[in-house]
């Protein structure tokens, strides 16, 4: 389905789409955390959507605007993509888990949880995936500083012409 059609369909069927945007031929829709699971289930089950392939789930830290949680799914049957997005507040961000909709979301949510500190309500096994238990902080938040970069200017900061000299 074309991006505009799909977006129109979702707006009518779920009534939970706040806004949509098509950039570089890719559709993004924004929803709310209350409707998060409902929208996802609709995407999976609806005959027009048929999003059977779980691509990824992650987040982007937009500093003052909060976290944007991105779910990207793909339909092998219908061959269309969608980004479903959700803005979570900076303080105590929390979203319902999607691991009941697509089992593949399990690990992606664990990763997002430890990297951004976004809680996934109802997740069956929310433990750290990569980091040690003793590790403090959420590395992919913008306020988590890379210590090496803070200590020493990276030579890669040079502009192309400086290399020559």
């Amino acid at each position: 389905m074309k991006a505009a059609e799909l977006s129109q369909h979702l707006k009518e069927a779920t009534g939970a789409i706040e806004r949509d945007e098509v950039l570089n031929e890719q559709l993004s829709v924004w929803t709310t955390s209350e409707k998060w699971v409902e929208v996802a289930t609709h995407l999976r089950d609806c005959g027009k959507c048929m999003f059977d392939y779980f691509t990824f789930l992650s987040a982007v830290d937009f500093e003052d605007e909060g976290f944007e949680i991105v779910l990207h799914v793909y339909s092998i049957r219908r061959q269309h993509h969608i980004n479903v997005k959700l803005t979570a507040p900076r303080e105590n961000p929390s979203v319902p888990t999607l691991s009941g909709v697509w089992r593949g979301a399990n690990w992606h949510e664990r990763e997002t949880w430890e990297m951004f500190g976004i809680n996934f309500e109802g997740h069956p096994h929310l433990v750290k995936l990569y980091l040690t238990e003793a590790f403090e902080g959420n590395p992919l938040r913008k306020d988590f500083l890379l210590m090496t970069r803070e200590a020493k200017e990276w030579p890669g900061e040079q502009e192309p012409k400086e290399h020559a000299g």
Partner: protein
Amino acid sequence: MAVDVKSGILPGGPGEGVEVLVSGSADLATEEMLLNIGPQHPSTHGVLRLVIALDGEMIHSAEPVVGYMHRGFEKMAEVRDYRQIIALVNRHDWLSAFCNELGVVLAVEKLMGLDVPLRAQWIRVMMAEWNRILNHLMFLGSFGLELGAMTPMFYAFREREDIQELMEAATGARLHFTYNRIGGLKEDLPRGFMQHSAALVKKIRHRMDDYAGLLLGNEIFKQRTVGIGKLPGSVAKEFGCSGPILQASGIAEDSRKTEPYLTYDQCEFEVPIGVQGDSFDRFNVLFQRVHQSLSIIEQVHDKMPAGPIMPGKMPKNIKPPEGWIYARTENPLGECGYYLVSKGGKEPWRLKMRTPSFSNVSMLPALLPGNLLPDLIAILGSVFFVVGDVDR
């Protein structure tokens, strides 16, 4: 004594200190044995760790523990400019360096609206396919080794050596090629490259018969793999498995075919699929993919145009406009996608790496229980993954 592995007993590694639930009664005739497979195990291709609960040799549950190789690439990408990111991303899946670079480069080019010269596109197709063969040969060899046939491994390295020599001639590197540039390529192919490449295609195609004879046609190999670790297509899709694993489960999803990038739409090739998604099918699909790649390379030889390899006018500093994009490529191991968010700076605001191995490994807890320990190896070897690609 039965130990609930799902609750996560992970001493000494990432996740240490998680409580262990011990339940069950002492009068049971047999007890579950909790066993670490990895991180230092001959057949986990690096430092993947599996905590498995065994009853005799029967696996009751299996939980992959990753993170031994976590290098924080996504964070590092946020403080590097786009030129540096090319050299960064070819390191997470070190067996398919060129294809990784390609994903990032395609994402940036599309975000900036750059037109890549046709010759550069064709060279990219050819190099990506050589890289795919390079990667698949590694797994063709190591899968045999895991089942106890050591010869295919050495043959695989013999062929890999030839291919690496070829790619070195063009790129100057053997593992981390860094041959892509935003807009095109580092430099044109050296003189005589096409002849060399054409000769190698014939040679590799001929030598693929060795693998067919040693493994695909081997009765013991079939006994060990047919019907082992059957992965239904619906489960594979749900976990986001891709590449040979998804195709072996009977789903012909290959972004070279369904959403062609570069000039794949002008190449003729097939997406091999399996029937029942068992270890044999996965191996067979991998094997057939090599043949398809060889045929693509031959087509590239015929269609390669002359021309420049970089656009005439390129900005000195690469600063994509504000926005976001998801670019996917069919990597040797499956769908590799980069979700790039730009705020107009010379560094990406966020670069999410969606790697095929991550999704493939996350599927293991659903696939492994109910199999025997020797079959664990047959399954693990056919769920093709690179640990660096899981951990990033």
